[in-house]
């Protein structure tokens, strides 16, 4: 098989890892910018890897990082050059095929989730996220949204927090007291 063959004719958006996105002889919107970004980032990392220990010794902590970032920079450079020579796909636009509004909105949700997780606590943030996300995507009534999102949150919370005792950020809810309360109740019942 042609080693440069990428994906099949129907899938250009990288549906699965085995069928990567992109076209063979054309470049998608934003592809060149991404390749250039990778090249520049690799060069910066190469510079940073040099800073670890320079050319001190073959066994220096910076030896392998320097080698790998060099490979990154060279391969990203080749990709960028090749991409630059390709024609742009005329049927696709950045806002329609690569970064539609929903995706941007969801990336925004995730960033907010990450920032609010520590101060607000897991339970509140996750509840808000699920309610808003399911409401936006499913476009169904509030009853459905609340039932599905809170129901699944309870299951996830019990599995991770209670069964696997993962200490998810408690935030402003007195989660530990809540669990202890039930523990006491259960141990009381046992007597």
């Amino acid at each position, binding site marked *: *098989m042609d*080693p440069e*063959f*990428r*994906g099949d004719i129907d899938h250009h*958006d*990288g549906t*699965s*890892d*085995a*069928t*990567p*996105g*992109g076209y063979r002889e054309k470049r*998608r919107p*934003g592809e060149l910018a*991404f390749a250039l970004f990778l090249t520049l980032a*690799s060069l910066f*990392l190469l510079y*940073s*890897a040099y800073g670890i220990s320079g050319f001190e*010794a*073959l*066994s220096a*902590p*910076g*030896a*392998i*990082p320097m080698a*790998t*970032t060099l*490979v990154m920079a060279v*391969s990203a450079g*080749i990709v960028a050059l*090749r991409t630059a020579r390709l024609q742009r796909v005329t049927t696709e636009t950045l806002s329609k095929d690569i970064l*539609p509004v*929903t995706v941007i909105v*969801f*990336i925004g949700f*995730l960033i907010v*989730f*990450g920032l609010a*997780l520590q101060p607000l606590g*897991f339970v509140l943030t*996750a509840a808000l*996220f*699920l309610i808003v996300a*399911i409401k936006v*995507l*499913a476009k*169904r009534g509030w009853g459905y949204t609340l039932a599905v999102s809170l129901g699944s*949150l309870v299951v*996830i919370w019990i*599995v*991770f927090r209670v069964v*696997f*005792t*993962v*200490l*998810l950020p408690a935030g402003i809810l007195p989660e530990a007291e809540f669990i202890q309360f039930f523990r006491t109740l259960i141990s009381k019942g046992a007597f």
Partner: protein
Amino acid sequence: METFLAILTVFTQPELLALVGIGTFAGIYIGAIPGLSVTMAVSILISFTFSWDVYPAISLMVGIYMGGVYGGSRTAILLNIPGAPSAIATAMDGYPMAQRGEAGQAIGVTTVMSFFGGLIGILVLALAAPFVSEFALTFQPRDYMLLAVLGILLVGSLSSGSMVKGIFAGALGIAIGAVGRDPLTFTERFTFDFQIMEGGISFIAVMIGMFGVSEALIQLQNVGMKAVRQKIDKIVPSFSTIKTYLPLSLQTSTIGVIIGALPGTGGDIAALMAYDHAKRVTKNPKIPFGKGAMEGLVAPETANNAAVGGAFIPMMTLGIPGDAVTAIMIGALFIHGLNPGPMLMIDQPDMFWFIIGALFTANIFMLIFGLTGIKIFTKIVEMPRSVIIPLILLLSIVGAYAVNNSITDVYWMLGFGVFGYFMRHYGYPLGPVILGVILSRLLDDNWRRAIISEREDLGRFFHGVFTSPLSCVLFVAVILIFVSQTPLWTAIKKRVFAKTS
């Protein structure tokens, strides 16, 4: 003979049998949820089973281990999100099958082949443990390094798109693995003086982000699309199907046992190496690799379950863990008053046979539970996308946090998720990134150990490579595989074949 009968302990005590069963069942689900790892479950079990006897405790742990390694394949096939690192290769061909509505068949084959691989692993453990562990001990740092290089060459078969992009992705993975304080000298690498970067980037966070979050974001673009109806009638593969893949599964099980038995390498590397092996030896797959080839499921699944038996070999014979889970089990044995080490086989041989019995039982339970619960599992993919996408995102966040109780890992996970989303759109393969992260430490640490041992002298290093038969074999394999991936080789092959025909 009497000690050998300990192999039957599990069957004679209903309580133990039930515990192995419960463990296996739980393991399958733990393995299937990205972020819940077997390592985590087993270490929690240590405090949980603290006051128990040693046999019930070990029964439960063995069950979870066996079930968990297998369970990772479920979500890999159904959602394209590997539940555990050892299932990364399974997603390559399993997910395309699910997209065609053949998830039931894919899970069926996976289950039977996992059982088969598990069985081979247990057999080798039972019959040849001392020899394998002796062989595993002979691996020197330079051999581990060559093994890592061999692994990195898998980039070729993992990148179904452009080779250059695959190389970039692989190198990126190695660089990601180097972030944080270097474990050998504690030098800061790529930390940019941020304290939160000192701990490095958790490999699980990268995996969940790249596969879970980027998958969910991609799916957002076709929320409205109707889910593929899954055929679940032909789950148990026919005998002739199994027979067809028998030779391949024997080879990949061998890979699994050996990689599993080596201290420091586990089921994840074994599965990827087996996938690569299958791709090399299968000349004419019915369906091409990456599109849902059966061989692409058989190879990694036999290998990762065979690696379970393999990982127990150094643990039982030398008291050295074969992977993270066996490391915790050694701790558990200590707590229960046993002293795992080379003397365990001599002092308490019945423990050895008991564990083999428990592993065997867990393997059978895995087959039973694996083939029966498929209907409920496939329902997951038939759920409306508007619900499943937010849930995947939430599980990704919880999972990334749970690995190390670190909010930093969540940020990394989200970052790599968005980055992976762009990589997919522009045809950069994600598999090599994960491969790079997995192999980064193996390559880096052992390269440095090897060259330090030779006092920084490359001449002495190569002298060592050529005078040791093991290193020599590995080195030749590296060269051959490397050459076979360059255009030069294809040209030579063409000319040679032209002459002979």
